């Protein structure tokens, strides 16, 4: 008996029981569709988080003065004065894995222009900061090294600040705004970046030369932090090692002493967030996988019923020359046909459902080709696995008894 004949026989048997075949298939359809939809949602949110992190600069490294304990009281990081300008300069000059470096000092307060005012944060940084955080200038220019040298009262503002202070939509470049009584001339406006994955408005900020903020706003000489970017995301660890070495040397820390600074990288955050979404994806896929399993058990159940119901048919086929393997193949092909057809319908439904979720609920989705291939492969395997025992049972029937089975 050849394959075409077997498929013909199986199709004929399925055609004789359309409703039952469809209901059996439904288990597989739902299983495959849910696997694909869940993976699409899981992968979609993972990708969207990754995209947001890389917007923020996935190779970013943040250095803060470390938690110090004075008299048993852990001090607030901003109260630390351990990070100095020479730390910044040494990082700029001595590292190989760091591409951009900027000191950071910041201050929150009201920004005022004419009759309008809005609370915001001023970040005292160097021009490198744009490259580290991946901001782009939309209008005007970034302030220059020259402005830093002279502690010029110039600033670059984010979109939210512009919207708040210039509600009429007039050109803000060249205007002078006040922040904590100090006038700042706007030299540039940043391109909007929107909200980040933590819900923070990335456009609600003012960038100014760090020297200006240090001297004229905060009246300090130390730095509140240093922000760097590694050459590439992969070099983050090497960059952190270099920075640690420089800072420990500069701060004259003895071997075995704790760091008086903390270094955090965006990579950590990214790893943490993606591991969370990965876990979510795995959980979703597990739930969906269970429904696929249930679908498979449905196939096995129906195939058992079918074998019992068709015992006489099996007996007849055997007595007119069907070998055990022919009977096995016939029932196996039947269950594979059910599961593969169900799988195909499931793929279509799953992709459709994912698109609906995207369209209606605006969830980010990403349909990975491998998830389609995988779930399809799984349901074929399901067909073989769950079809095997009933088919084996059929093949092992004794034709003498089967033909007279009532």
């Amino acid at each position: 008996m050849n394959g075409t004949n077997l498929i013909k026989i199986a199709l004929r048997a399925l055609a004789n029981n359309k409703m039952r075949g469809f209901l059996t298939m439904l288990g597989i359809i739902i299983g495959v569709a849910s696997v694909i939809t869940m993976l699409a949602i899981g992968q979609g949110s993972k990708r969207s988080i990754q995209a947001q992190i890389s917007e923020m600069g996935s190779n970013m490294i943040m250095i803060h003065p470390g938690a110090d304990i004075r008299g048993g009281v852990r001090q607030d990081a901003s109260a630390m004065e351990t990070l100095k300008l020479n730390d910044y300069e040494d990082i700029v000059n001595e590292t190989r894995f760091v591409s951009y470096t900027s000191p950071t000092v910041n201050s929150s307060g009201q920004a005022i222009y004419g009759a309008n005012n809005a609370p915001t944060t001023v970040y005292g940084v160097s021009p490198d900061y744009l490259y580290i955080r991946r901001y782009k200038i939309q209008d005007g220019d970034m302030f220059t090294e020259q402005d830093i040298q002279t502690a010029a009262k110039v600033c670059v503002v984010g979109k939210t600040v512009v919207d708040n202070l210039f509600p009429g939509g007039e050109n803000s470049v060249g205007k002078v705004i006040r922040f904590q009584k100090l006038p700042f001339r706007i030299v540039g406006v940043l391109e909007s970046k929107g909200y980040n994955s933590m819900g923070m408005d990335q456009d609600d900020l003012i960038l100014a030369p760090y020297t200006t903020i240090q001297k004229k706003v905060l009246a300090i000489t130390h730095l509140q932090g240093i922000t760097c970017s590694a050459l590439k995301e992969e070099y983050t660890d090497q960059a952190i090692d270099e920075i640690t070495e420089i800072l420990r040397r500069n701060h004259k820390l003895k071997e075995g002493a704790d760091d008086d600074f903390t270094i955090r990288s965006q990579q950590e955050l990214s790893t943490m967030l993606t591991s969370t979404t990965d876990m979510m994806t795995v959980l979703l896929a597990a739930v969906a996988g269970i429904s696929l399993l249930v679908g498979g058990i449905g196939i096995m159940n129906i195939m058992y019923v079918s074998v019992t119901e068709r015992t006489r048919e099996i007996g007849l086929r055997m007595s007119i020359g069907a070998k055990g393997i022919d009977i096995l193949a016939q029932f196996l092909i039947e269950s594979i046909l059910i599961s593969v057809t169900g799988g195909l319908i499931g793929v279509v439904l799953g992709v459709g459902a994912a698109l609906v979720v995207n369209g209606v609920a605006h969830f980010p989705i990403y349909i990975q080709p491998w998830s389609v291939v995988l779930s399809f492969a799984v349901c074929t395997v399901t067909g073989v696995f769950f079809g095997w025992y009933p088919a084996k049972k059929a093949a092992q029937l004794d034709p003498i008894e089967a033909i007279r089975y009532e």
Partner: protein
Amino acid sequence: MKEIIKLDNIKRDFRVGDETVHALRGVSFTIHEGEFVTIMGTSGSGKSTLLNTLGCLDTPTSGEYYLDGVSVRTMGKNARATLRNRKIGFVFQSYNLLPKTTAVENVELPLMYNPNYSAAKRKEKAVNALIAVGLGDRLEHKSNQMSGGQMQRVAIARALVNDPAVILADEATGNLDTRTSFEILVLFQKLHAEGRTIIFVTHNPEISGYSSRNITLRDGHVTSDMVNTNVLDAAEVLARLPKNDD
């Protein structure tokens, strides 16, 4: 005449619990090509076991069975399946047609298990077999749209389609009314006249009159084996029977 079936001291024992049941206790006979043999016996006589053995569904515990010159006793399951496919045509009491399947598809079935036949050749043979049993006008009827007599004709066509060495009929008229039974007997006699070898297993002694040879079984032994010199013509009897009104 060619020997189609040769049984040599066939014994078949079954173990039921702790007891051994001797279903066949040494059966020997030879059937030649073109014979129409009835094998009779009451229930428990061993005729079902004999039928299973003749049909290569079962193998004897001891003794030799040659089907068309081939020794069956030592054959494996698969080899016997192929042997059945090529050499034997079965006709069962309860027809055993596939449900919701057309006459042609039912008749084609044995050829489906023979890779030497193409789809076209299969169909041609099936149609010819159906014409031979007088169902040329019901090729595409499904099994549930046919009467008992028609279904048994389809089953006979199915038994003919592989040009078997022997047709094994197991109570082939058992489920049919008198008139239809005779119609089927007429068909068997016609096939016999065409030179086919037929073994008809039955418990109904009436049928023996229409065959060329009668073998009687009792308690696992052959008790009589006679050539029927006065073969009745089933067609004549059929002509005398009152017509069915329906």
